[in-house]
């Protein structure tokens, strides 16, 4: 049943094209809507079990021999995310029905969206590392397809490519970490790894594993150096931005860190990296968001900074911090989802998302403005208990004030509250700016469309989300007890703690921090024109996007340069590489293994005619190098061949001598036939450097081959098997000519294939001569 639930979006995605083709009158989204609603209802039924501490575990064997099985596991953490995915998913599908025109390629859109939903469910529910990785990559791919949905636009495809490159890079690093983890613990199950966490923490590879896994989480969740893909992903249709890039996919990294907290948390390295980068991302994201003028770009940077905040709290690792983190995940999903939908409505009804051109929309679209008000002020953490963002931000401030025992943590922890407040001030500024500059003031520009209120269908989803914002703020306990407590339970592995009710303390530091954010934020917002020049100094001309572009360009031009440098197209160069490499390889491996074992024990006596022939052959071989005439070079080369056949005679190999004699004659004749038609051999004017290289290489090849020849003659490891042939040639083969018996009888197969080679060569020559496409004005 649980497997069917995860499989359902994929199945639905399979049938979507048929419905799309078949039913033209009804918007395709209505059919899709049933899937997430059904799943949401199904996952709601698990709440009771999870609250009682009953975790569901279902296994479907996939590759049992490798320990890769589709094991689905529902505990507090997994259930919360499953509800988030299907819940926000339903709202987004509903919203998209009104947002997307029927003229769009709806079939593609909903197939990708369902694939994404299924993949995301798989990520949060898998208990198997490698199944988790499979679904993880599937979210990357479906997100890539969704960002590039309007593939005719250059920006869409560029954004899709960027997000693909960055998230897949992280995903691969993560796979490396997973492999090491499963190798160390001997299990592929996440629960099994958590049980054996000490094996990983104590292993020398620990920091390596941690960094690899965190690379995956950070790239997916757009943490500091890797956040650059998220603003570019805003080219996707707004429902996609709302679903993937605020509520679900970017939280996959958060999920992973939370899931593996039981393994890593408690180590200093984990604390430093996760909370350090989290706070850095929080500050940088909110700082950059203020500068942006595009609604979705502001929201993108805001998402980055909020994710940084959640990540930082996961890094703190205290129970209060984890509770704040999970509470903020819920809150962020509600208000950011609604804000994206509002941005989509503004875009849809006015034709622009640029806040420099917008303003005074309150009178035209009061409902949207009200929704935006709740979303933005909740995001700002405005100190009123009707905004859930305020509650979780308060908890965040409180969590940042924690005390820790470890000396390293002790030394950096005091800075954290200041960073948290600093990031929150900017969060306040952009949230306020987002609302006021869009909906109040005068209408600054003539817009393409006369702005008007959105259709009711488009407003339902953000309305539900905003209602949740307020409800969560008013009765946080309901959500705290039912959803968050079991989630904290599965992240920290400890029993539910009563901290959840801890809200209204007037007399605590966190509240003063909130008030400080409010005061400074207001002042800075009102005076923003005075200090805006700061942006020319700090990011200045630097940005992660530029670094990424420079890196990609450098990679491309660099590899092109390297390739052009050695792939010259000159055969001489390739020969130089091949020969140099083989000489170096042979020389090194021979000298390392002590292969140059030269002995003179086993030498035959040298006769005078052999020496004479050898001298003649050497002279002839040398002569060919200095010949200026091709024909002469061939004829002189023939001397070497005939000399060889004479040597065969002296060494008592009559068959070889005969064959060598005839083959040499035939080759010389063929050479003469062909070279007769070539232009005269001109003395090449080679530069002396080239000549020296040629000499060095050819001499070293000659030397190394000679040495190997002598060495292999001096070391005979086994008795040669020729004795067997000599004894059995007549008895088994029925012939006295041992060579011939070996050729046709003992080793007949070799001969069979050699004549096949000859036949192929002849056919090759025949085709080359007879079938030339360029012969009669054909191709080429």
């Amino acid at each position, binding site marked *: 049943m649980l497997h069917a639930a995860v499989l359902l979006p994929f199945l639905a995605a399979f049938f979507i094209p048929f419905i799309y083709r078949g039913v033209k009158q009804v918007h395709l989204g209505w059919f899709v809507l049933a899937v997430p609603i059904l799943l949401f209802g199904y996952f709601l039924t698990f709440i009771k079990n999870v609250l009682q501490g009953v975790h569901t575990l279902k296994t479907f064997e996939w590759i049992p021999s490798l320990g890769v099985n589709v094991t689905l596991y529902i505990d507090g953490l997994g259930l919360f995310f499953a509800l988030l995915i299907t819940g926000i998913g339903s709202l987004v599908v509903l919203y998209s029905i009104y947002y997307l025109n029927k003229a769009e390629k709806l079939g593609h859109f909903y197939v990708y969206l369902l694939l994404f939903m299924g993949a995301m469910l798989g990520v949060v529910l898998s208990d198997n590392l490698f199944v988790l990785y499979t679904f993880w990559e599937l979210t990357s791919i479906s997100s890539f397809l969704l960002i590039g949905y309007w593939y005719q636009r250059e920006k869409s495809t560029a954004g899709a490519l960027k997000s693909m490159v960055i998230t897949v890079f992280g995903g691969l690093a993560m796979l490396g970490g997973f492999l090491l983890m499963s190798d160390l613990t001997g299990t592929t199950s996440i629960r099994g790894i958590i049980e054996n966490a000490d094996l990983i923490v104590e292993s020398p590879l620990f920091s390596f594993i941690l960094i690899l896994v965190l690379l995956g989480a950070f790239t997916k969740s757009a943490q500091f150096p890797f956040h650059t893909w998220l603003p570019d992903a805003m080219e996707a249709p707004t429902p996609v931005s709302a679903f993937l890039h605020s509520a679900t996919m970017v939280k996959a990294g958060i999920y992973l860190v939370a899931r593996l907290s039981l393994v890593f948390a408690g180590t200093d390295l984990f604390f430093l990296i996760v909370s350090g980068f989290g706070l850095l991302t929080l500050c940088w994201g909110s700082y950059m968001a203020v500068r942006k003028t595009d609604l979705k770009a502001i929201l993108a940077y805001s998402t980055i900074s909020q994710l940084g905040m959640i990540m930082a709290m996961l890094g703190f690792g205290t129970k209060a911090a984890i509770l704040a983190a999970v509470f903020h995940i819920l809150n962020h999903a509600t208000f950011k989802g609604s804000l994206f939908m509002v941005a989509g409505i503004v875009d849809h009804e006015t034709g622009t998302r640029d806040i420099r051109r917008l303003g005074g929309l309150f009178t035209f679209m009061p409902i949207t403005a009200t929704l935006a008000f709740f979303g933005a002020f909740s995001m700002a953490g405005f100190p009123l208990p009707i905004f859930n963002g305020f509650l979780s931000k308060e908890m965040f401030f409180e969590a940042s004030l924690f005390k820790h025992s470890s000396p390293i943590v002790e030394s950096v922890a005091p800075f954290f509250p200041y960073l948290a407040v600093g990031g929150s001030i900017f969060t306040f500024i952009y949230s306020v700016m987002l609302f006021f500059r869009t909906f109040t003031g005068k209408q600054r520009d003539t817009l393409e469309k006369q702005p008007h209120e959105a259709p009711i269908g488009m407003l339902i989803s953000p309305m539900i989300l905003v209602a949740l914002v307020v409800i969560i703020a008013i009765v946080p306990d309901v959500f705290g007890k039912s959803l968050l407590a079991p989630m904290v339970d599965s992240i920290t592995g400890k029993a539910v703690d009563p901290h959840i009710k801890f809200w209204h303390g007037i007399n605590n530091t966190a509240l003063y921090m909130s008030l400080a954010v409010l005061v400074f934020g207001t002042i800075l917002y009102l005076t923003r024109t005075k200090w805006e020049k700061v942006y020319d100094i700090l990011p200045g001309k630097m940005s992660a996007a530029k670094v990424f572009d420079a890196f990609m360009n450098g990679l491309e031009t660099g590899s092109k340069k390297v390739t052009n440098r050695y792939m010259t197209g000159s055969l001489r160069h390739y020969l130089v590489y091949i020969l140099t490499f083989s000489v170096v390889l042979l020389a090194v491996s021979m000298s390392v293994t002590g292969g140059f074992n030269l002995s003179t024990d086993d030498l035959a006596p040298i006769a005078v005619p052999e020496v004479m022939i050898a001298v003649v052959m050497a002279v002839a071989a040398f002569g060919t190098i200095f010949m200026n005439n091709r024909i002469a070079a061939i004829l002189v080369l023939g001397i070497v061949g005939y000399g060889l056949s004479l040597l065969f005679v002296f060494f008592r190999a009559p068959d070889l001598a005969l064959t060598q004699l005839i083959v040499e004659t035939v080759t010389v004749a*063929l050479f003469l036939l062909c070279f007769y038609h070539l232009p005269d051999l001109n003395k090449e004017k080679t530069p002396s450097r080239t000549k020296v290289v040629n000499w060095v290489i050819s001499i070293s090849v000659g030397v190394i081959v000679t040495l190997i020849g002598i060495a292999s003659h001096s070391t005979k490891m086994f008795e040669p098997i020729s004795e067997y042939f000599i004894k059995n040639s007549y008895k088994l083969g029925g012939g006295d000519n041992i060579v011939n018996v070996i050729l046709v009888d003992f080793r007949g197969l070799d001969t069979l294939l050699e004549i096949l080679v000859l036949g192929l060569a002849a056919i090759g020559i025949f085709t080359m001569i007879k079938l030339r496409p360029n012969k009669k004005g054909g191709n080429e």
Partner: protein
Amino acid sequence: MQRSNDLILKTTTTIIVFIIMGFSIYLFFAGHNAPGGGFIGGLMTSGALVLLYISYGFKTMERVIRFDFKNFIPIGLLIAVLTGIGSFFFGQPFLSHTDAYFELPILGHTHLATAILFDLGVYFTVVGVTMTIILNIAADEGEEELSKQNTQ
């Protein structure tokens, strides 16, 4: 092209070709017990044939030899492979050979081995290969010269 009257060449060729042919056949049959075999025999045969082509020219030879040497290649390969397959009929592995003594009508007490069949395949292939290569390269020149003459 005007051919000079090379009567001496043609006459000697006629005699020598038979000697070479005879020698090549000897080499082929002697292979099992003395230097020689299918490979050398085949090369020798094609040597004789090339000599014929050199002295009498293409046109004459085309009238005398009506078959295409290209066909020798598949024929030779087929013989070799079939020899190998033949051993399957006696439940032996591929390319197992046997030999025995027979009383033949003219030759008398003779030693025959199936290896000679395999060598026959080698022989045919080698003849086919060398003749195909040499004749095609030679013929190609002629064609080029012809086309040159046509254009001039």
